[in-house]
């Protein structure tokens, strides 16, 4: 085994609301692509919402965490507050000027803006 085979060092935990609107799905797709690009690792917000100890403790112990909410309802943020997980980096996609709708037509330009904003939020934390 390598010296640090199982150390999660340097990994950013990415939590997205993945909600039922364009902005929820933009949050989800940004988390997927950032994971695929090696920026961080998308993790299960549902597991934290279910108060499963492995998920809650992982979120509490990780060194870097970024939370992406689609809209100002702030579901992800509230879930983490209920689980007593401190939030380090946080953004709401409607604050970027992206209008919430129920059409689910995600466009590449918005997606790239979201990914850039996530990286920026992490740099600022």
């Amino acid at each position, binding site marked *: *085994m*390598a*010296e*640090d*085979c*199982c*150390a*999660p060092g340097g*990994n950013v*935990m990415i939590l997205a609301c993945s909600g039922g609107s364009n902005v929820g799905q933009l949050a989800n797709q940004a988390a997927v692509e950032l994971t695929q690009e090696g920026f961080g*690792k998308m*993790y*299960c917000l549902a*597991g934290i919402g279910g108060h*499963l*100890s*492995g*998920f*809650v*403790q*992982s*979120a*509490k*112990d*990780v060194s870097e965490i970024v939370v992406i909410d689609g809209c100002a309802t702030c579901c992800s943020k509230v879930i983490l507050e209920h689980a007593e997980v401190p939030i380090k980096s946080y953004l709401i996609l409607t604050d970027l000027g992206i209008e919430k709708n129920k059409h689910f037509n995600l466009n590449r330009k918005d997606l790239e803006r979201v990914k850039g904003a996530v990286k920026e939020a992490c740099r600022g934390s």
Partner: protein
Amino acid sequence: MDIKVLGPGCPKCQQTEKNVKEAVADTGVDAKVEKVTNLLEIAKYGVFGTPAVVIDGQVKSVGKIPAKDEIKKWITK
């Protein structure tokens, strides 16, 4: 008490297991300590990284080596 140390076997996992065993010995708590190296078994706990420590089914720490004193607090509560 049932204690599991999750991790495939790097030095951090080994140190965690050592700390757990020493904490159990120091406190005299009646506990079974098991090392879990099977990745599918580890995945069932949903942890973001390893090493992780699970006490009676509750995950207590993830991705770090818990100090012996911290482990003692968990097992004597």
